[in-house]
């Protein structure tokens, strides 16, 4: 899908780098790392919203894909109703012009906001706003989906449901997902590959492949699942104490 070649990012101080990465098409990659490690910055770089100080990003076929982005904040236009917020990408991007209104309604009901379509963002709770933002990203036909702690503000039941919905979408479509989270379990449950970032400056500390998938309903979780979780938790702990 895309490659990072020795990327560095500096603001006043070095924030990130060097980072070299190869994200395969149709893969699902989770990113873990302590607060301030540069995870959001990494997603912004991947979406071309900010430019690296040095190094380069190479998209496959030298063409920027249609990118869906769930930002860490809901990022809604306060004067637009929920449905009009979801429809925004269709109004702005020519690639998204042909998306139908039905699809927007479908996604709103999928994230559990049926009946809230004509509410304004300030009438919603924090978690509900976040779900509008998720619906907006899913509404687009993107081929690269960047998600920055999308489910952090949700209760566990909705969260598990949306995780499974996301996996379902990802399996059925040509979709590459980069998923930032603070939950090790979530990272391992969702992804085929987990990147662990260290901070000051942000680097990729570890790159773990998850092969065996757990089924949420089946009580017999594989030992691989738990050993990966333990392994990753230990790395994060160690990184913190250094």
């Amino acid at each position, binding site marked *: 899908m895309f490659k990072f070649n020795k990327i560095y990012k500096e603001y006043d101080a070095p924030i990130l780098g060097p980072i070299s990465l190869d994200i395969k098409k149709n893969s699902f990659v989770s990113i873990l790392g302590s607060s301030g490690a540069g995870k959001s910055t990494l997603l*912004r770089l991947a*979406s071309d*919203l900010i430019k690296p100080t040095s190094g380069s990003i190479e998209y496959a076929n030298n063409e920027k894909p249609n*990118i869906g*982005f769930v*930002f860490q*904040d809901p*990022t809604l*236009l*306060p*004067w637009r109703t929920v449905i009009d917020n979801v429809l*925004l*990408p269709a*109004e*702005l*991007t020519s690639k*998204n012009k042909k998306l139908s209104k039905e699809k927007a309604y479908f996604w709103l009901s999928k994230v559990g906001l049926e009946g809230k379509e004509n509410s*304004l*963002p*300030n009438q919603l709770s924090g978690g509900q706003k976040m779900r509008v933002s998720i619906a907006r990203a899913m509404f687009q036909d993107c081929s690269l989906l960047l998600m920055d702690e999308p489910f952090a503000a949700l209760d566990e039941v909705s969260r598990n449901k949306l995780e499974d919905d996301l996996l379902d979408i990802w399996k059925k479509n040509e979709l590459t997902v980069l998923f930032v989270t603070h939950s090790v379990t979530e990272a391992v449950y969702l992804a085929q590959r987990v990147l662990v970032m260290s901070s000051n400056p942000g680097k990729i500390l570890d790159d773990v492949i998850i092969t065996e998938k757990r089924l949420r309903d089946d009580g017999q979780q594989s030992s691989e699942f738990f050993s990966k979780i333990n392994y990753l938790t230990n790395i994060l702990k160690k990184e913190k104490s250094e």
Partner: protein
Amino acid sequence: MIKRYLSFMAPIITFLLLLFAWELIVNFQNIPKYILPAPTDIFTSFLLNYSDLLRSTFITFRITFFAFMIASLLAIFIAILFSQSKIIELSLYPIAVIFQVTPVVAIAPLILIWVGLDNAEFAILILAVIVAFFPVLANTNLGIRSVEKNLSELFSLYEANRFQRLFKLQLPYALPFILTGMKTSIGLALIGSVVAEFVAGSGTSTGLAWRIIEAGNRLDVPKLFAALILLVVLGVILFLIMSLLEKILLKRWDIDKS
């Protein structure tokens, strides 16, 4: 309920009591009308001169309203230009500031000469526009600049063009700021048109300012007061209309202006 009723009635009752005290003092102290007329004298004078006074009120209102509209539209337009090009902003903003800091009385004679003394009303309009212009410009400019960075990023993500960004993000975001500017500006437009008419003096215009000068020259203080009161009422009504408009338009907006 009672509280609401009180907050509505209290100022009215206070006002009536003050009028009453005023009336009593003037009558018992035998203060001459040309120093301080009693409220009843003012009212009588208004009844005697109402056609003159209302016509003048209308003329002042008309100039104020057009000056306000022209100033607002022009200011918003220029603020949009500023948002599109840093060079335009850097070159024009100082000029706007110069207009803002120059007292309107000081440039009034010049404008009068340029447009001709027999075009006094046009000169007054121009002067009122100059006075009313700046708050809308400054606030619109501020509003467009205040657009949250993450919303701006969202529009970059969707590859929005300039126009989409302007009409779907920057102007809607700036609306509360624009309305704040317009609320200040409508009062200034009134002040501008009155001050300019004072300076224009004996020209062809016959707004409320002229009625005040005229009544003053003739020591017809009751009429002077009547004109003054109409001026205040006009100002308050204009401000209330703007506040109401703001309230209606901003129902949906929930932006932190701090």
